């Protein structure tokens, strides 16, 4: 239930983010027992690189606290869509925070908005939509894969979000969104292999007072076909973009400063008399300077997808 609103203490059944380090965090369910592969109910012990955690022990603990592991410690955090996106069980490829933020901004999602999403996938984006539109809006999310739709529905329920979302198992490219949704949506989001096929359905689903449209596609050809379809139906403000986030790696570095000036002068008598060059170097201790530096990581996401946005202007007849 830990996704509904900010809370202070871990309750049984909460999803909790176990934060070990920048590269290592896990989403765990705060339940004392789990059922193992053999069907037996056993104590819930979670294994990490820093040893094991008896999950029962974190129930009742304040979020943000430090918890002891058998070989170290970790912090427990309340999940946010950002943390969930980084820890959720992948059932499909997912969209990450930089793209999602732009999608929410461009679709103007706010409390009270009615949003249609297809496909649901792993529910990464759905959690963001739900945060933005609850408690007065509603998300209708569609996936053509039955098991995925069921899993997502179950997950939303466990996360305390069931009241704000309806999950449909439906092939929207061929069947469209259900007819009850005609003229009901403020915004439609598509992440489909052939978004152009669903554009006419999006057109029907948007309110008569107009609305916003977004399609996310990894390939530019998909965007091209989608835009042709959007233009045909009278959408305007069509715009495509790409958002890429770079991380800065910040470190304090100690750098040696080497002195090369002395090389311009002839060697003095005493040095020539007794030393080899290597001994000479060691005689003057190297100066060290401390710098706070920032650099980019070796590999960065170079492409995620093209975001195509459009507006359906008000009062376009849909018959």
């Amino acid at each position, binding site marked *: 239930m830990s996704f*509904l*609103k*900010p809370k202070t203490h871990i309750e049984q059944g909460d999803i909790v983010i176990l*934060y070990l380090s*920048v590269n290592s965090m896990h989403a765990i369910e705060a339940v004392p027992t789990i059922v193992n592969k053999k069907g037996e109910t056993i104590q819930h012990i979670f294994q990490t690189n820093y040893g094991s955690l008896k999950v029962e022990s974190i129930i009742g603990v304040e*979020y*943000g*606290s*430090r918890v002891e592991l058998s070989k170290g410690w970790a*912090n*427990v*955090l*309340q999940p*946010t*869509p*950002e943390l969930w996106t980084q820890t959720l069980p992948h059932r499909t490829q997912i969209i990450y*925070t*930089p793209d999602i*933020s*732009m999608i929410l*901004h461009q679709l*103007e999602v*706010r*409390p*009270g*908005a009615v949003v249609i999403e297809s496909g649901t996938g792993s529910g990464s984006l759905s959690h*963001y939509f739900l*945060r*933005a539109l*609850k*408690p*007065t*809006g509603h998300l209708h999310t569609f996936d053509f894969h039955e098991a995925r739709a069921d899993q997502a529905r179950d997950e939303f329920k466990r996360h305390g979000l069931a009241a704000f979302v309806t999950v449909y198992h439906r092939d929207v490219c061929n069947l469209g969104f259900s007819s009850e949704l005609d003229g009901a949506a403020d915004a439609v989001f598509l992440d489909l292999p052939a978004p152009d096929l669903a554009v006419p359905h999006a057109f029907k689903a948007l*309110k008569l*007072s*107009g*609305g*916003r449209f977004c399609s996310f596609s990894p390939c*530019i050809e998909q*965007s*091209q076909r989608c*835009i*042709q379809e959007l233009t045909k139906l009278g959408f305007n403000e069509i*715009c*495509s973009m*790409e*958002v*890429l*986030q*770079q*991380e*800065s790696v*910040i470190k304090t570095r100690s750098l040696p400063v080497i002195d090369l000036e002395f090389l311009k002068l002839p060697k003095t008598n005493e040095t020539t008399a007794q030393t080899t060059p290597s001994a000479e170097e060691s005689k003057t201790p190297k100066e060290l300077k401390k710098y*706070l*530096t*920032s650099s980019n990581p070796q590999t960065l996401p170079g492409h995620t997808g*093209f975001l195509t946005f459009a507006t359906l*202007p*008000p*009062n376009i007849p849909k018959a």
Partner: protein
Amino acid sequence: MSTDGTTPNIQLGDYIVIQRQKYTKLQKFGSLDTTSTLGKETLELKSLLDQPYGSTFKMCVKETKTGKRGAQRQHTLELCSDTELRSTREVLGISSSGADNRDICDNGEAQALKSSDIEQLREACNESSKIIEKLVENSKTFHTRTEYSQEKYLLKKEKKYFEFVQIRQPTIRLMVDIFYRQDAEKIMGIRVDTLSQIISYSGVCGFGSYLLYESGTNGLLPAAMMNSIGAGTEGTLVHMHPGNVPQKQALLALKLPLEQQKRCVSVNLYSVLREFYQGNVAPSIDPTEVEAEETLPETPNEEQPEAVEPSTKKPKLDEAPLSGNNKGPLRWQIENKRASALMHGKFDSLVVAAKEHPSSILQALLPLVRPSRPVVVFSTCKELLQETYMELKTSGKVTALHVTSNWLRTYQILPNRTHPEVNMSGNSGYLLTGFTLK
């Protein structure tokens, strides 16, 4: 975008977005005499009253004055239907075009009409398509241009002579575009992608209590956060600023319902912290407190309407409605008390977008944030965030620290002519994000 599916009408006192093709502008529709200037055109806004948002109006020339920089035209606006808007290519029925540009040379003789002829044409014709038709007729090279080049030519001319404007209701999306294009400095260089991420990383939504410190974004940040907090929810925002009066333009432009406006408590950073730490000492209505406050730099005082708002030269009278003079506590005192109460209850996230060094601000405000809550610090320079990153990391009070920036690239997507836009913005600014610990 209204949530009930009806389009509201334009009212006096509203902020409106005037759009002419791709150009947009935020304008206050203060009175029936309000005019708005788009380049050389001046528009009388009178006829907008009570028309639905999203309507398109035709600019009808009322008079032409010769100004310093060519003719200044004054227009009235006439409501028109969307069917009047058609592609110029269709209207003109252009069919023939060349295969490439081998026969085209720039000798300055392509257009037979002189600029004085065009000016006359402009006054005589009310429709841009007629002017463009004449331009095309008198162009010696138009039909030898390629189809793409013709389209470009028409678009260019259409942009110049386009006679329609659309009136739209301000939203965060439209306003950040306008502000960033007009003067990015005024919103501290917060680009659209960065703004969208501030909203995400801060977790601001309909539940919870949020804290923002910003030193001047024309009200964009508090407006964006209030927009995400939403109408009819329980979320609250304490908006701290360094000046006498908060900058609120974007917030006012959103025209939020009163109950939602009330959940945004705008307070001066110095005076609210004083209230928070020492408030119980002084009785609330004591006039001596005002005197004491006046010794502080940049605190609000009784003469709020006279105070200089940092962004605009003139004070805006309608932005400082004070509760009756000398009767009861002043409005800023009440706001300080409300903010102070929320501060005692602690916050569910902290957003800082400061022109000052963020370090001391974080030191003062971080203790007001509950554990396991997001912290987002914006800066245009990485160096400030580097230092702050190290301080927070060493303190052990904030974890999952990241410093990030963005690339934002827009694309022209047309059949056979797809490529990234020629220009892109090079500075997204930087975000420092993390989560508080117990």
